[in-house]
């Protein structure tokens, strides 16, 4: 089977094995979070087959992986839009205009926070402090921070995202 067609967890196995070498023996449970992050980065979300594969690989109970997936807000069980816009709404960002920014974003995209555009391009979320208050307001686009945003800069940014 070519690498591209392999199941996600199997394809990532060399990376997981490299991580294991830097951990003490019997730390398989510690690999749950790093493995889920990599799977999600690869697939966009964590699918049932990934959970089954990780249960087999790490030897941890399925319930533990399900609990982790439901507890941590960054893990997803379903696909989202190609561009995930996560706008900070915490103290400093709201003191620097994030409320207007989110309203503008929602207006332009025609969706409410928590929704995805019909064409599957954008998902809009409101999130809590991203640790970037010195450059507020901040919107995360997929994994990258976009800082010191204004409505003009936001327009330019949206124009660049296809």
């Amino acid at each position: 089977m070519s690498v591209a067609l392999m199941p996600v967890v199997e394809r990532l196995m060399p990376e997981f094995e490299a991580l294991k070498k830097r951990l003490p023996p019997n730390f398989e449970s510690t690999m749950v979070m790093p493995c889920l992050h990599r799977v999600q980065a690869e697939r966009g979300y964590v699918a049932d087959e990934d959970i089954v594969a990780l249960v087999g690989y790490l030897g941890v109970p399925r319930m533990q992986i399900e609990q982790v997936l439901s507890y941590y807000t960054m893990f997803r069980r379903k696909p989202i839009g190609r561009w995930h816009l996560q706008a900070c709404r915490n103290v400093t960002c709201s003191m620097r205009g994030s409320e207007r920014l989110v309203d503008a974003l929602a207006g332009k995209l025609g969706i409410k926070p928590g929704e995805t555009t019909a064409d599957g391009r954008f998902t809009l979320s409101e999130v809590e402090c991203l640790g970037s208050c010195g450059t507020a307001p901040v919107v995360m686009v997929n994994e990258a921070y976009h800082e010191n945003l204004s409505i003009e800069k936001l327009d330019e940014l949206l124009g660049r995202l296809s």
Partner: protein
Amino acid sequence: MPGTPLLMTFPVTATSHLLAEYLARGGYGALEKALTTMQPVDVTKEVTAAGILGHGGAAFPVGRKWAVIKPNDGQPHYLCANADEGEPGTFKDRWVLENNPHQLIESMLLSGYALGVRNAFVYMRGEFDMPYRRLQAAIEEAYAAGYLGKPLHGTGFVMDLVIIQGAGSYVCGEASGLLTSIEGKKGYPRNRPPRLTVKGLYLRPTVVNNVETLSNVAVIVRMGAEAFRKVGTARSPGTQLVSISGHIAKPGVYEVEHGYPLKKFLFEDCGGMIGGRKLKGLIPGGISAKVLTGEDCENLTYEHGVFDKAGSALGSGGMIAIAEGTCMVRLLQVMLRFWHHESCGQCTPCREGMGWMHRIIDRIVSGQGRMEDLDQLIAISNANDGTTICGMGDAAGYATVGFIAKFRDEFEFFIQNKRSKCGGVLDVAESFGAAGVAHA
């Protein structure tokens, strides 16, 4: 520069985070010094003598935390750097992770040597992408150069270092929640005792220190405790990386020597408030630290005892400056929404209490408030105090009580008149624009 710096001692460039430049600045020299001339216990003695207090928020003496570890008791010991920077207003560790990752690695090697650690971890919040890339690249450089994963200087001391990324849980910044998360579970904090230095990661003795705290270890070993103590004050040796944001003209990360005058820092180093507005309030160390009014800030110096006496704390160094014209009721609403969102749900007083408080403040802001709501908020805060496993419920309560105590007239005005005394404004720069006054 607000006093003598210990960490921000070099110009940040596009390459200053790389190993070659760190070595050129004398990097890994403290490690060589320790491994060739000091026993592990000497490193602990030096760190204890330096009198450094934790920089993550609780200001616990590092020496006292380390003293619990018995490096030769035959069990594994673990070291974790807390890089789960999520206290609103705080973004100082990000400066270290992005700009001087090797100093953290060298400091963790020194700490690991002192504490008998074979495996160390950095627990970093999942949203931090650039800091993760920078630190991961630095770790790979350190492995390639033989600092990690190989015996060092013929001592037999070997340490591995791995980053574990969080996934959006504020509570995992609490040390025991952090360890539970490294164990691959929901990040529920744990009851003490036992202390984490007795039973931490997988029930083995574990030291969890903040990124900035650990980064000071290389500085202490390099300059010696005596020279280190010459910076700062007797009660608060050294410096604090202060991340300042809000309605301040020059937000960012500044290294402030303990004992530096607060007003001078705010109005000279940080350029004062945007648009020349008056300082209405200051959250000095993350939103869990009690708010101070502008008047409270007069004559304060930046050090632990002084801020405690003023009724607040240095906390995490995450300062938020609030300008005149800001609606404090809506600001507290943003804070309570955050705590309600982040309560992990393990302890009933926090899980239910945060929801109640959030709904009450929403009711006030929607114009449906009753005067007894203020006492209700205070009563819930007081009832939460000390009844939860971690400090989140307590902190949310202290902050709420602080806001109501300092700005009660605004809360009463909102309830009586069904509208904000300050027009509901959070972003004062925008209100300048609306009033035709130039933006700062």
